[in-house]
C-alpha cells in the first residue's frame, strides 16, 4: 500500500532522526511535558487519595472523581489557560495535571479501602500508631492499585501531551499539526504512530515498575478483582 510505504520511508529517513525537529528531540520534549505533569499530579493526588482512604471518609467523591475527570475537555482547558496567561508551557501543564489527578485519587482511595478491616484491627491490636498502620500495613497492601492508578494516568497524559503542539510548543504532536497544513499525510501518520508507540512503551515500563514495587504476597489479579467489586458496589 502506498500510504504504508510512504510512512515507512518517512520514519526511516535520516533527517527524521537528528536535529531539533528530529524524532529524538521531539520525543524528549514530549516526555518532558508528560513526566512533569505526572509528577505534579502525583504530588497532588497521592496525599488526597491515600489520606481520604486512610480516614475512610469522602469515599463517594473519590470513587466518582475518575469518571468525572474523564469529562474534562483538555482542549478547552488548554485554550482557556492560554487565553489567560499566553504562550508557554503553563496551559498544557494545567490541562495534563487536571486529567492526571482523578485516576490517581480514585485508585489510591480504593486501594486503601481494600485493606481488610480485620488486618487493620490486628495491626491496631498490636499497638501500631495511625502512622505506622498507614506506612507498614495499608500502603503496601494498597500499592498495586496505587501503581495502577499512576500507570493509567501517565499513559493518558502521554497521549494527550500531543496537544502541546496545538499551542505552539514541541513534542510529537508537532508532526500532526505541522503535517496537516502541508498536506503531508506521512508526517501526520508518523506522528500518530510515534505517540501510540510511546504510550504503549510507557504502559510497559510502568508495568515493570509496578511489578517491582508490589510486595510478593499480593497477586495483581486479586487486586484487580477487588477493584471490580468495589466499583460495582460503589456505582
Amino acid at each position, binding site marked *: 500500500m502506498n500510504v504504508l510505504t510512504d510512512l515507512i520511508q518517512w520514519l526511516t529517513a535520516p533527517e527524521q532522526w537528528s536535529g531539533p525537529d528530529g524524532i529524538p528531540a521531539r520525543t524528549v520534549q514530549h516526555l518532558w511535558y508528560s513526566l512533569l505533569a505526572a509528577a505534579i499530579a502525583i504530588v497532588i493526588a497521592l496525599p488526597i487519595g491515600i489520606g481520604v482512604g486512610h480516614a475512610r471518609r469522602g469515599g463517594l467523591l473519590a470513587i466518582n472523581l475518575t*469518571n*468525572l475527570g474523564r469529562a474534562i*475537555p483538555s482542549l*478547552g482547558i488548554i485554550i482557556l489557560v492560554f487565553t489567560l496567561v499566553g504562550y508557554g508551557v503553563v496551559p498544557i501543564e494545567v490541562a495534563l495535571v487536571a486529567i492526571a489527578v482523578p485516576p490517581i485519587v480514585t485508585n489510591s482511595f480504593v486501594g486503601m479501602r481494600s485493606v481488610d478491616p480485620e488486618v487493620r484491627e490486628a495491626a491496631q491490636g498490636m499497638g501500631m500508631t495511625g502512622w505506622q498502620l498507614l506506612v507498614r500495613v495499608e500502603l503496601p497492601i494498597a500499592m498495586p492499585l496505587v501503581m495502577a492508578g499512576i500507570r493509567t494516568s501517565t499513559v493518558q497524559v502521554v497521549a494527550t501531551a500531543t496537544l502541546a503542539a496545538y499551542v505552539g510548543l514541541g513534542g510529537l504532536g508537532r508532526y500532526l499539526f505541522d503535517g496537516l497544513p502541508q498536506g503531508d499525510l506521512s508526517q501526520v501518520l508518523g506522528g500518530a504512530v510515534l505517540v501510540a508507540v510511546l504510550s504503549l512503551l510507557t504502559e510497559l515500563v510502568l508495568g515493570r515498575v509496578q511489578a517491582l514495587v508490589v510486595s510478593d504476597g499480593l497477586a495483581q489479579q486479586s487486586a484487580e478483582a477487588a477493584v471490580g467489586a468495589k466499583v*460495582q458496589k460503589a*456505582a
Partner: protein
Amino acid sequence: MTDGPPTLLAAELVRWSWIGDHADDIRDALLQHLELTGLSVLAGTLLAFPMALTAVRWPRLYAPILGFTGALFTIPSIALFILLIPFTGLQIWTALIGLTIYTLLILVRNMVEGLRGVDRDVREAAQAMGYTPARQLFQVELPLALPVIIAGLRIATVTTIGLVTVTALIGWGGLGQLFITGFTLDFTTPLVVGIVLSALLAFAADLLLVGLQRGLTPWARTRGS
C-alpha cells in the same frame, strides 16, 4: 488587550451579555454535542455487543481483540480524526467513526468482564433447566452482567462527552465550537461557557446512567455487604 494577571483580576472572565446574545448558538452547540455523543455511544454499544460475545465464546480471540482496540486507544484522538478526513471528509461520519472507535474499547472490555463474571454455577443451572443458549444469554447472563456493563457505559459516555470537543478541530465539536471561538477571538467567555456546560453534561449523563443501573438491577440494591 489581555495582559495576564492584572486583567485576570479585573472582572472580564465572563461577559454575561455575550451569553445572552449567543444563547441560540450555545443551544445549537449543546444539541450537536448531545447528538454526537448519543449516536456514537449507541453505535459503540451495538458494535461492542457482537464483539464481546465473540470474545466470550472463543476466549482465544479476546487477547487480539483487546490488543487491537487497545492499540487504537493510544492513538491521540485528534490524530485519528485528522486521518479519517481524506476518506470521509467533513461529514459527520468522520467525527462519529472516531468517537465510536474510542467507545468500543471501553465497552467491549466491560461487556466481556461482565459476562465472564457470571457465576459458573448459575450458567450450569440454567443449562440444566433446559434454557437454550439464546435464552440463557438474554434472560440470565446479560441481566447479571448488567452492573459491570453499565459501569462501562458510564465511562464510555463520559469519555465521549469529553472527546466530542476535540472534533471541533475538524468542523464539528458540539460545545467545542465555543472553544475555537474563544481561541480565535482571545475571549474567555465562550471558553468558560463551553467548559462548564460540558462538565455539567457529563455529570448529568453519569447520574442518569447510575439511575438506569439502579432501575434495571433492583436485586443489587438489597445486597448487604
